[in-house]
């Protein structure tokens, strides 16, 4: 605070103390307290673990770069680095392309069955991370259904799903929904009247796309490329099951630590993994976001959202959609099929027993998973709401820092976070390992960025005058947030909450490091089932997980929809 501000502040305090009720003075206190607490939490649970990883990689009785020298001088380590970057770039491009087409079809065309396109465009988000890999083995493994009956007879032996091709396939399927959601946002923000204007000035539909739509979506394309790049770099579950000889960094870091007990080297690999992810994150945040042209003009004139397209375009769009959705149907269908066969790969007679055995074996995991998710989810929502409110509506020192720090955990690969957590919270003063708290905290800080993002977006659309009106009538920061802002943000808030609940159910990469004897999670046991070959049971649990996650999201959407209607009435 400048001297002048201090003075005027002081003056105001004197005045208000004598004249006005002390409410006005109190307003700032809860704000500062809140900001302080949030900063403390962000430092402790996001930055400190990362620092510990960094420290582990450079400290060995004094500062040293030996680990990095060792890493970069061994081809055993460098190959995974190139593999990771190559895979991530390919997934980013392919996933962005598919997501773009899906979003274009949903927002700009009259395709029959657009609703299904929408469902398929988001479906892979609600499934546990390595389900698709499991399906890939069922279908396309050495002894897979498709390999045996279609690929080998036609193309001959030698096909292998393990490695780059397979990972590209499954990661694209897992992560293109992110691109899809980005582009739905981008396309909806482009006023269709711009297309009208271009047509009106003599541009044909294809020219309008090339010269107007495509340039306007470019920032979105960069965002999507970078975010998918980050997601692929961070992916852990799929490579663990499907990488074969194709090594990637996230798994290497995990194996380094869990297999070779080499914490310093594991930390070093984590740092190497972290750098490209962080670069992508900051480029996205500070370069791409700023360049965005797309702004809502507020009042949009009447326009036909849906443009007609040439036959060729329709065939092109249709085939992208068709191929992708049939892949999704095929892969998830394989999981469902796998869950009903007796001994998968040997005895394919029908049985329901996998479900009974699965639930019986995993009952404790299921219970723990739901309890922990149920505790973590509302807290995640609350944190996201408070942070986004502070960022959008309040002025304080270190605001930019708060925004970056709170979004950071999105960019940090789960493996790195997990390693950071075991390093940071394994000794006093922050002894947390083995408690449920560490899992809950990890859930909160891993899933928070999604919530913050959606809350910031809807907060920006909310007229600040509404909150000013509340303050004008005597409410302070906290009560305004509680009585006015929160209820108005409820739809966005609850869909964010539902989504983060689902993410709790399906998380693996970071959580695998912090599960303990007292608290265990379903995805971790699922991975064990896969690893140990109880594949049919793993399929059954996957099906149950997907059904649960799907119905939670469905119910939430229904409630929000009903609430929306009520509000409008």
């Amino acid at each position, binding site marked *: 605070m400048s001297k002048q501000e201090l003075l005027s502040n002081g003056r105001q305090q004197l005045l208000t103390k004598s004249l006005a009720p002390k409410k006005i003075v109190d307003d700032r206190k809860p704000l500062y307290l809140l900001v302080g607490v949030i900063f403390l939490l962000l430092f402790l649970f996001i930055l400190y673990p990362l620092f510990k990883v960094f420290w582990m990689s450079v400290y060995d009785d004094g500062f040293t770069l030996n680990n990095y020298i060792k890493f970069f001088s061994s081809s055993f380590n460098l190959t995974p680095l190139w593999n990771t970057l190559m895979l991530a770039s390919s997934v980013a491009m392919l996933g962005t392309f598919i997501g773009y087409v899906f979003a274009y079809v949903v927002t700009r065309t009259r395709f029959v069955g657009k609703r299904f396109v929408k469902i398929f465009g988001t479906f892979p988000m609600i499934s546990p991370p390595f389900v698709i890999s499991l399906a890939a083995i069922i279908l396309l493994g050495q002894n897979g259904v498709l390999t045996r009956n279609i690929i080998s007879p036609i193309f001959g032996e030698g096909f292998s799903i393990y490695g780059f091709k397979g990972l590209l396939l499954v990661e694209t399927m897992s992560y293109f929904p992110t691109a899809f959601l980005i582009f739905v946002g981008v396309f909806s923000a482009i006023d269709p009247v711009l297309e009208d*204007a271009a047509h009106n000035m003599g541009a044909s539909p294809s020219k309008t796309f090339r010269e107007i739509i495509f340039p306007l979506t470019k920032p979105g394309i960069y965002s999507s490329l970078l975010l998918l790049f980050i997601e692929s770099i961070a992916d852990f579950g799929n490579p663990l099951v499907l990488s074969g000889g194709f090594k990637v960094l996230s798994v290497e870091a995990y194996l380094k630590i869990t297999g070779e007990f080499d914490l310093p080297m594991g930390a070093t690999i984590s740092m190497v993994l972290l750098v490209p992810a962080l670069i992508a994150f900051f480029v996205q945040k500070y370069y791409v976001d700023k360049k965005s042209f*797309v702004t809502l003009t507020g009042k949009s004139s009447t326009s036909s959202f849906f443009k007609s397209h040439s036959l060729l375009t329709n065939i092109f769009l249709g085939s992208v959609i068709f191929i992708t959705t049939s892949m999704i149907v095929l892969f998830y269908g394989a999981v469902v099929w796998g869950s009903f066969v007796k001994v998968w790969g040997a005895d394919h007679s029908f049985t329901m027993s996998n479900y009974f055995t699965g639930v019986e074996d995993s009952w404790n995991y299921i219970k723990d998973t739901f309890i922990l998710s149920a505790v973590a989810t509302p807290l995640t929502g609350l944190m996201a709401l408070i942070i986004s409110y502070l960022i959008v509506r309040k002025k304080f020192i270190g605001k930019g820092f708060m925004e970056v720090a709170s979004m950071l955990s999105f960019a940090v690969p789960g493996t790195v976070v997990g390693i950071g957590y075991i390093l940071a919270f394994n000794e006093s003063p922050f002894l947390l390992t083995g408690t449920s708290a560490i899992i809950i905290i990890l859930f909160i800080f891993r899933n928070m960025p999604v919530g913050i993002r959606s809350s910031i977006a809807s907060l920006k659309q909310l007229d600040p005058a509404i909150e000013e009106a509340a303050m004008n009538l005597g409410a302070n920061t906290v009560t305004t947030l509680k009585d006015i802002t929160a209820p108005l943000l409820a739809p966005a808030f609850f869909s964010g909450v539902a989504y983060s609940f689902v993410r709790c159910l399906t998380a693996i990469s970071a959580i695998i490091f912090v599960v303990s004897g007292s608290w265990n999670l379903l995805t971790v046991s699922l991975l064990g089932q896969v690893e140990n070959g109880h594949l049919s049971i793993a399929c059954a649990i996957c099906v149950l997980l997907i059904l649960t996650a799907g119905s939670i999201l469905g119910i939430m959407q229904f409630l929000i929809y009903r609430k929306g209607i009520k509000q409008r009435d």
Partner: protein
Amino acid sequence: MSLLIRDLHKRFKTDDGKDFSALKNINLEITDGEFFTLLGPSGCGKTTLLRIIAGFERPSEGSLYFNGNDISHKAVYERNFPMVFQSYALFPHMSVLENIGYGLKQKGVDKNTINKKVNRIIEMTGLTPNKDKYPHQMSGGQQQRVALARAIVMEPEVMLFDEPLSNLDANLRISMREEIRRIQKDFGITVVYVTHDQEEAMAVSDKIVVMNHGVIEQVGSPIEIYSKPQSEFVANFVGQANILPVSNSGGNISILGVNYKKEIDQNLRKVISRPEFIKIDERGNHTGIITNSTYLGANWNLKVKIKDEEIAILAPIFGNKNFDVDQKISFSFDSNTLHFI
């Protein structure tokens, strides 16, 4: 003859699957060089009609002729009816120069010509200092000029305006509409202009079409529309109007119990009188009580209760004379200005 609209209908399917008629049996003729305004409340179909002319929508029935050719099924981008949009629809990723030159580029005009034409328009519209700016760097008024320039540069035979001034503040709105009118006259362009603002329509148009619920209520010059409205709707929508019942029997007409000498058609049952044409007169043949009185600077706006009717009167300021509520007041209609429907 320039644009001809024949028996045009437009039906939409609503969300709940019902048919909705946006336009019903529209017949219009828009002649060369005419400033033609579509006026009406929101939802009356005026924008739909404009979008059909532009080619964004296809008519459900009927046809559209341009210089004698049926263009109903011509694509938007083959029509060359440049439009100024309500939200301006400037391309956010293009500078002012690029925005204005975009249409010419589509036509395949060579670069030199484009440059020449664009620069001339930029100068004419006073945009020179802004020519390298992007839309988001400019004010609403400047964006509006760019939108206008972008359409004019096409040297169109017909230019379309979709509520172009509704996002501007009051003063700017007036100067812009004068500018649009000037340019239209200078270039001799045919303009089809959509607005819901009757004052704006009166100020710029050669001809006004008043629309309501998808049908045409009246076509005419501004003077005709104002002084001889053909329906209660037109009378109320364009300006303020007192609409009173008339007893009309055997050549004798009576308004509010007072007889007037006027030859009118037998089946006319109502009279329209504009508030400014009612004269306050101590010897006036109607007397009522003031129920509301507002001082407007140039006028008094009065509401006067007489019998069961409430009459609006716009009285010029006359000396220090005040009008108070509950005061008795006498007035008379100028029989020359009465319009019967």
